[in-house]
């Protein structure tokens, strides 16, 4: 079994799906006391915050492992303003897309 022989996209689809289900099923099946420690609960609530923040930063400011400031930065900046103004989700996404697309066309 050579992992490298598989198409990485298919490997990602199957691997992610399999693990996602195992994680969900574990929770429905594991005795509650195993994971009810407050410290574990706290860390578990913080992990998505760290990972999602990192993902937003990497998707906004990097290209092929280089740091870069381009039209995406302006788009995400507008999204932040929309979020601060408590705009609904579709407004946040569409305003970011419109800003970025407009700058892309000017460039």
């Amino acid at each position, binding site marked *: 079994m050579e992992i490298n022989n598989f198409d990485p996209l298919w490997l990602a689809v199957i691997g992610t799906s399999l693990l996602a289900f195992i994680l969900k099923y574990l929770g429905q099946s594991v005795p509650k006391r195993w994971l009810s420690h407050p410290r574990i609960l706290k860390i578990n609530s913080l992990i*998505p915050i760290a990972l999602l923040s990192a*993902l937003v930063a990497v*998707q906004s400011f990097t290209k092929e492992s280089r740091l870069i400031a381009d039209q995406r930065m302006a788009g995400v900046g507008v999204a932040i303003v929309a979020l601060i103004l408590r705009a609904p989700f579709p407004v946040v996404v569409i305003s970011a897309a419109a800003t970025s697309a407009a700058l892309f066309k000017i460039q």
Partner: protein
Amino acid sequence: MSRVNRATAAQSLSVSLTVGAYGIAFGAASIAAGFSVIQSCLLSLLTFTGASQFAVVGVLGAGGSALSGIATASLLGVRNTLYGLRMAPLLQVKGLRRIFAAQITIDESTGVALSQEHLGVKEARQGFWLTGIGVFIFWNIFTLAGALGAQAMGNPAAWGLDAAVPAAFLGLLWPRLVNKTDRLLAASACVLALAMTPYFVPGVPIISTAFLALAFGLRANLWR
């Protein structure tokens, strides 16, 4: 046959529709990252947990390996385990029903179930199932629509999709940043991931921020 509480059903439906519509963004992001329409739809059907799906296509789209994509997605999926722990005593299901319940144990089904608990166990259960099934249906339909739409429109940057995806993520993340610790962690994670990006294989900078969450979690406990 128990009657469905009208308020519970209304909340389940509105959550299902709103969240399901995110599926368009996912379908489009997945195509933009190089996944095919079938692969995008399978991710929504089988993985069925939004943040993990965005993460795996984000990491591979940025040039990361399959393993770093799977690892990042799975770290984000760990919270479903904790939702399951919370939901299991409420649902009391075994066998095939437990498999279905597990697949739809996500942020939204858990959230609605918890919000209906004050009405009673029956309403909380209905909230879980209605929301889980509702999100599943709409999420998959909209994923297909987004994937087909993105395929038809060519260069994703010309449509601003390259900014829409991080903006969508930010929209998911924003309501979770409720206190100083959360905001400090979010900012630190951004800085760490960006600082690591030029020196590490794509995907690694993102997964590494889990250690920041660990450190913040351990310290938060000491302060208490």
